[in-house]
């Protein structure tokens, strides 16, 4: 499939491995990306805090450029959660709020641009991979399954919330990335924190708050037995990876849970080299975790034969539908 691509500032630099790994795997999954020419920063969560109309106009410029440049696609994708949310938010709010729509377009007109709200479908990269390209297509490309690697799928906040277009099965416990990672052969641990906050910009402006949140996630992943955390967002990666070191200092702990992008794991399973995928640029070294990958699928204990419940057995768990 083809999509317009908004890399965003982070992917260009601090999340370069995310971009590199995406570029490395795109051909395998048949994803053609058309980068928006001369895009600008999305404003992250900061611009909106200062000027509202300007923030939407800043994002509007990207949408307008994308609309004008689009060839054979109306899908606009981004890998960064904040970039994705900003693009999606402006599109949605322009659609729902006629006044905002008019005002933003008036501002865009100053630059000779115009955006028709709703003309693009703004989608996060993971959404495209899971729901459009599909698990089967991904599975078909796996040459080196990630057998034996235990991973915690971490979605963070802004991809699954507020989820303007209803793309995910849950705002709290989504399963798409879990299924994707299983398709790669990895074992996905069950944990309760997959959409809890990584600290966001608090790591810069209020590190103590952020450290607490980072510790909870890292501790939770480790408790659940994960060898690594897999993420889909540059900010989450940065906070959990780079600030893990700072957090350890703060709490006098020594967690070493590496944090990689899902695209990097896809690349590994597709047989790409670690270097090609930007593995090695992370702060917490992923090598020990990746060494656990085995050639054979681990044996799964056979399901226990059903027997008649006896007094003293536990109460049955609720059936999940």
């Amino acid at each position, binding site marked *: 499939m083809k999509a317009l691509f908004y890399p965003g500032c982070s992917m260009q630099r601090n999340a370069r491995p995310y971009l590199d790994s995406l570029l490395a795997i795109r051909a395998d999954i048949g994803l053609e990306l058309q980068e928006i020419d001369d895009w*600008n920063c999305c*404003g992250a969560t900061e611009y909106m805090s200062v000027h509202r109309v300007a923030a939407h*106009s800043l994002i509007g*410029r990207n949408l307008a450029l994308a609309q004008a440049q689009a060839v054979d696609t109306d899908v606009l994708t981004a890998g960064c959660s904040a970039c994705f949310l900003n693009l999606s938010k402006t599109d949605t709010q322009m659609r729902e709020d006629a006044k905002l729509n008019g005002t933003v377009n008036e501002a865009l007109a100053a630059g000779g*641009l115009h955006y028709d709200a709703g003309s693009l479908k703004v989608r996060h990269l993971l959404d495209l991979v899971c729901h459009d390209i599909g698990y089967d297509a991904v599975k078909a490309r796996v040459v080196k399954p990630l057998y034996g690697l235990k991973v915690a799928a971490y979605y963070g906040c802004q991809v699954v919330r507020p989820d303007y277009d209803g793309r995910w099965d849950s705002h709290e416990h989504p399963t798409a990335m879990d299924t994707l990672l299983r398709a790669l052969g990895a074992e996905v641990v069950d944990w309760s924190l997959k959409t809890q906050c990584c600290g*966001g910009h*608090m790591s810069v*402006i209020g590190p103590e708050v952020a450290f607490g949140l980072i510790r909870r996630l890292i501790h939770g992943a480790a408790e659940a037995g994960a060898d690594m955390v897999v993420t889909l967002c540059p900010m989450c990666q940065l906070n959990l990876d780079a600030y893990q070191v700072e957090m350890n200092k703060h709490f006098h702990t020594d967690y070493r849970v590496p944090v990689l992008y899902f695209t990097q794991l896809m690349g590994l399973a597709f047989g790409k080299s670690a270097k090609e995928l930007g593995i090695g640029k992370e702060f917490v070294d992923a090598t020990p975790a990746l060494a656990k990958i085995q050639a054979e699928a681990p044996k799964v204990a056979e399901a226990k034969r059903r027997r008649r419940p006896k007094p003293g057995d536990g109460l049955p768990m609720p059936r999940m539908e």
Partner: protein
Amino acid sequence: MTAATISGPKDFLSEVMAATPGDNRLNHCIQCGSCGGSCPSGAEMEHTPRRLFALIRAGERKTVLMSNAPWYCVSCYYCTVRCPQNIHITDVMYTLKAMAIQAGLYHDTSLPDFSETFVDYVEKYGRSFELGLATRFNLRHHPLSLAGMAPLGLNMLKRGRIDLTPHRIEGMAQLSAILERAKSLEGVLA
């Protein structure tokens, strides 16, 4: 003639609602606290979102705009999706931040300053500039911790994960024109 439902001078609640896009439903708050309970940084806030909304209703403009709460919002949107009244809480936080900056009310300038520094870079280059942002922000507000954070920056540099110079987009003039017009329209929506 207008319907009697909208009457009297604009109170603070109406003002905040008007400045927040879409059907934000702020007037429907039932004070249940699911926002405050869900907030990752709620423990650090001077007022939980719920309490801020009660204060907004009470017309306590100054208290609200001086509160650190909006600045501690990490945009995780838990409150928004969990709110039983579907109030666009995160968006309201953005509104309050913008209002606080405009009114110059928030007492600790570091948090607004972070946002404004970020905005400065974007307006100058069209892209964000992490090194500049971190350095400038920390120099101004946490000069002592700068040294402590230095290894982090160096390591970023070593791993090729940070730029030494900002990247400027080609259409800077166009972007500036758009932003300038946008700022002149800022009041239109409220």
